[in-house]
């Protein structure tokens, strides 16, 4: 049948993808699910573990997402702050004023923000532009490990690990080369 006709491709696939062919198709399924979601709203708790600080900085708030490229991070504690990513521009709003950062001017940060946005958007192409993408698990419980391709970016971010269940993300961990890391835990927002 059809499978037998394609048999001759198997060695090539095995060679080129080092056996991750199965993972790739699962990844596509997860990406498909994520891409189908147009909006998302979750609560987050974020902890930054920095060796220079005596204890982790902890913040919490709400994360909103609108496909394909609007991501809003509203921190409520300990200080009110809104980070809005829209069309490549990051707007930081605090009690004492507003700052607009064009991410294109900071090539080191852009992929880091992109890792979360592209995952939420199910944009595999963009993920693979910036990262070596490693998929593990299954649709029911998956984890993506993203390692930056660019050496400049590598200096800022060693790897990003995103854990999820179907189309829901529940953990984002960012490791820096010096061992510092941040951990963001997500859960569905309490009220709509």
């Amino acid at each position: 049948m059809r499978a037998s006709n394609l048999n001759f491709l198997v060695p090539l696939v095995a060679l080129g993808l080092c056996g991750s062919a199965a993972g790739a198709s699962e990844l596509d399924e997860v990406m498909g699910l994520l891409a189908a979601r147009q909006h998302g709203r979750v609560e987050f708790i974020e902890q930054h573990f920095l060796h220079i600080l005596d204890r982790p900085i902890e913040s919490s708030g709400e994360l909103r997402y609108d496909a394909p490229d609007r991501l809003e991070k509203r921190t409520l504690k300990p200080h009110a702050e809104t980070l809005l990513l829209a069309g490549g521009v990051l707007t930081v709003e605090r009690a004492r004023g507003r700052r607009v950062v064009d991410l294109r001017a900071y090539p080191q940060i852009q992929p880091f923000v992109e890792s979360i946005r592209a995952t939420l958007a199910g944009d595999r192409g963009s993920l693979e532009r910036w990262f070596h993408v490693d998929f593990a698990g299954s649709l029911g419980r998956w984890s993506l490990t993203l390692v930056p391709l660019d050496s400049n970016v590598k200096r800022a971010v060693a790897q990003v690990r995103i854990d999820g269940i179907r189309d829901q993300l529940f953990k984002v961990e960012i490791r820096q080369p010096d061992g510092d890391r941040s951990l963001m835990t997500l859960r569905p927002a309490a009220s709509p």
Partner: protein
Amino acid sequence: MISRRAWAPLLWLGCIAFAAIVVARAHYITDLSAFLPANPTPIQQLLVDQLRDGPASRLILFAIEGGDDAARARASVLMVSRLRKDTQFSMVNNGATDAQQSDREFLFKHRYLLSEAVTAERFSAAGLHAAISDTIDNLASPAGLLFKSLLPRDPTGELLNSIDQLSRSPSPMTQDGVWVSADGKRCLGLAQTTASGSDSDGQGMAIDAIRAAFAAAVGAAPAAAASGVQLKLSGPGVFAVAARAKIEKAVVRLSIASGILVVTLLLAVYRSLPALGLGLLPVASGALIGIAAVALGFGVVHGVTLGFGVTLIGESVDYSIYFFIQSSRRHSGAGARSWQQLWWPTIRLGMLTSVCGFASLLPSGFPGLKQLGLYSVTGLIAAALVTRFVLPVLLPAGFAIRDVAPLGDGIASALQRLRRIGAATVATLAVGLMALSIVVLYLYRESLWNRDLAALSPISIEEQSLDAKLRADLGAADVSDLVIVSGPDLESILRSAEQTARALRPLVDADVIGGFESPANYLPSMATQEARRSGLPNAAELRANLRLATVGLPIRSDRLLPFLEDVEATRHAPLVTARDLAGTSLNAGFDALILHQKDRWNALLPLRGPASGREIDLARVAAALAAGDVHEALALNLKQQSDALYAGYLKQAIRFSLLGFLALTALLLIALRSALRVARVLAPLVLSVLTVAASLAVGGVQLTILHLVGLLLIVAVGSNYALFFDRQANSGDRGSEALTLASLVIANAGTVTGFGLLAFSQVAVLVALGTTVAPGAFLALLFAAILSPREAPRAAAGHA
């Protein structure tokens, strides 16, 4: 003893020798300043200086196009690293981060003097607590990652503040580590030359260096990868060099072409080499003395003035044509002498009317026009005098040129046929044509004159649009609204700039303006730096404050020892000077906002439009400056200023031209002593001027100041024709008509071909002149012939 015959040639030889020395030693320039105003107001002077020598004039914009993304980025990186080693450039930037490394080191080193946030309160326990907790909060945000490692040395985040206050203007986007256009199809960069913008040689060498670096960068890549990658350059220096090349090429080409034409024409007419040599004497003397006069009068000679030399050839060659042909009836000294009695007065009057026309250029605001005026006036007088006093003496005995009488007879009979058209018909046609031209000019009155200074620029539209595109991509768009503060030295204008900034800040909050740049953001005044430095607490005090400040924060004060050291170092360090800034690429940004004139310093604070997209309300800006008690500060719109500037000069030129016309009319009235004769002399001139102007308008050409000069030239050259016809009609010397006509037609052919050549040049100002004068001179002769008074019936019968 020197005989009476010999003094003229001797005097002439002396003058020529002197003029030759002056011309050989003169300084020639070919930049664009010929068409920048000479006696402007202080603000205009500022604009002109900015255009000519300002730091912005030293900026070369480059773009790399074609090929694939990687090939462009690679070429950009290799080219820039090569150029950075070249001392011809004070700054080369393509957005690569290594370029910003030294800048960041500079900002970091001097952060406690440069950051606007630094005050004594900020270093109190409470101030430190707020600043440090803010910085720690920042660490949680994406941008904070970049500054994490700096926390122990810079816990108050002054580096970020220093960067922020400089990056308030948009910067281009980065791809593959270098600046690219919004569509990613072009790699972009900036180079600032050490040579001043008006130093065309220096600019030319810098441009060659950039091209060579690009060629080397592309050559270093594999052929396939580099294929199709192209370099595009723009900027004031690039324009100046291109303009110079164009003008030089045009001048050389036109001189050769018109030389060949005149020689051919004269040889065809004279059939005699000695006659040719003698015939060129007035032209050559006129040109030489004209250039010498310009060199003596202005110190420098503009290349464009030499280009206009053709205009002089056009008219002064006429003098020798008139002389040879008109004195050829009797091939002897008596012939020359009778020429002096019969014809010289007419030529002298024609020369004087031309001088009236050209003299109206002398008060012009444009150095190029002033020079043209002086060149033409002295050149014409010299040529006429050489024709009158030198040529007759030098004529060899038995001198003869080809008899042009048959040619003259042919023309005369053609003219007779023309004249069979009834006088009433001719008058009707003339009035009709004049009325039509006036109606056309009236209909086009709104768009008749081009009030855009750029119309005079030898830069093509394509080059201008490339420049606009690159500027937009680089975020270096030409600013139109700005505040200028002036003062006697750098320190005073930096202080005024700081004061202006305080006055402008409420306008940013109210969205009257979107923001502004200031040189004080790069280099605060000594006073401000001193205030910041003296506000820094000593080591013991800071240590105590820090201990209190870190209570409740997730960082222990002993981790911030490097901070204590850096603050202490700053307390004993010298203040930052312009010299410190000079080693960084920030210097280009600073330099672009500072303009140093002779004894005047100016700081430019360009304003950005408000977020609402409205125009900036300069009245409100001015009110804010007044309220902020900022003296020596002025809010203005550059586009309005330069438009007003040019419109003013155009108006002035039109006024002077009309005055020149009045002077010419007065001269004719005195010489001819008959209003009717003056009207008859002027009618063909006015008619051809109106016809040419109307034709240009209908042809979609907007008239510039150079078209005005062209119209003036039509009057100057045409007046000779009209005067000869007038003389013919009033002298009773009927027999010489054929010779008069022959000399006029030959002279006219020379003028029309000379100016016709200009029309084919690449330089807009020369084209304007050519397309106006060539048809105008021809029409002037035609109209003068047709409108000339009819012969009295008796004389006509006798002639036939």
